[in-house]
């Protein structure tokens, strides 16, 4: 498969699955709202999925370069602290954390 075909395939898959997830519930989800399992899982899943995504993206930010471990740790701490102290303003926390990481990685 050529590179362009691969990239187009990714876009089509991304569109198809995302659109289906957005559209299907309008048709079928309504009756399933009352299922206890659905309710239970909907309370349990978000935090875990987000945490897994956070750690796996942290891991890819560090990459193969051990010199990135410390900047990543500092930037993580900055993100968390700014978020908790700064009133949970996502843009502010993400901006502060990213700026910290970019600066540390490029200056050290």
């Amino acid at each position, binding site marked *: 498969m050529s590179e362009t075909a691969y990239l187009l395939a990714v876009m089509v898959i991304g569109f198809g699955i995302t*659109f289906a997830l957005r559209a299907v519930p309008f048709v079928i989800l309504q009756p399933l709202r009352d299922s206890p399992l659905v309710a239970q899982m909907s309370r349990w899943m978000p935090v875990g999925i987000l945490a897994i995504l956070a750690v796996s993206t942290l891991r890819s930010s560090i990459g193969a370069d051990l010199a990135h471990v410390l900047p990543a740790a500092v930037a993580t701490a900055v993100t968390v602290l700014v978020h908790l102290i700064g009133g949970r303003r996502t843009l502010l926390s993400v901006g502060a*954390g990213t700026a910290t990481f970019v600066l540390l990685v490029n200056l050290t």
Partner: protein
Amino acid sequence: MIAGMTEMLNSVGRRSAPDDAPGAASCDTSLDVASDTDPDPVLDPAVVPEAAAVAVPDAAPPATSPRGEFVTGMRLSFAAGLGMIPIGVAFGMLVVQAGLPWWVAPGLSTLVFAGSVELLLVGLMAAATPLATIAVTVLLVNLRHVFYAFSFPLHVVRHPLARFYAVHALIDEACAVTASSPGTWTAKRLLGLQVSFHAYWVGGGLIGVLLASVLPGPVEGLEFALCALFLTLTLDACRSRAQVPSLLLAGLSLSLALVLVPGAALFAALTGFMVLLLLRSLLARRRGDPAPSAPHVPSDPEVEHV
């Protein structure tokens, strides 16, 4: 298999919202409010569009001309949309820096239109990840969208193409803004809102592409933005001790995945986490724990949205 998939489909939380911008976290707040207060949540509009459409337009505030309504929708997009542009710029820069062709940025933003998964896809595409893994990742990361149908006023839109677009552009921010003022939406206003969001996101990406191409070299470390976004969303989702067991199970699943299948850790960790949660649910039932009493509003009373 089908049944299992359906369960997974439905089991993702409304509060997950690992999406692009500040609206993501607040969307869930508005969703909860909406489902608490709105006595007449969407009555399966996909099945009975006529009936549902008749019931609503009267509730709209002083509706002006159709063009006025569209402009009102654009105006309502400003607050939530402000955050989409910088993240869009970061996304556009990442596409170029990852060595992908520039059109991947507007392509993904137009077709997929879901911030966090697009940012993830950049890395996955650059690494030529198999399409099956990409499909599973998109499915799991975007699962939360199934809950947006509950509050989104799709029933005010009647034209088939417009309905198609309204569903396609049902992002976290659109869900948040519409849920915060139920009953006031007209088709033009809704489309004004969604088209604006789409323009911010695609436009931000294009600015990023341009910026990255005029910079002398790649800005190293920019990809941390995605990690930071997930960190803040994790913090927002984890506001009571009731969330700790899930967090531990996620940690267990991820640790096992990193040790056993480091090459496909994300996929393995997400799947493993799902399996662990199903086991937890089985155990809870065996112990005779009461099932959640109010499935309509699966929110934690202890959780306070700030």
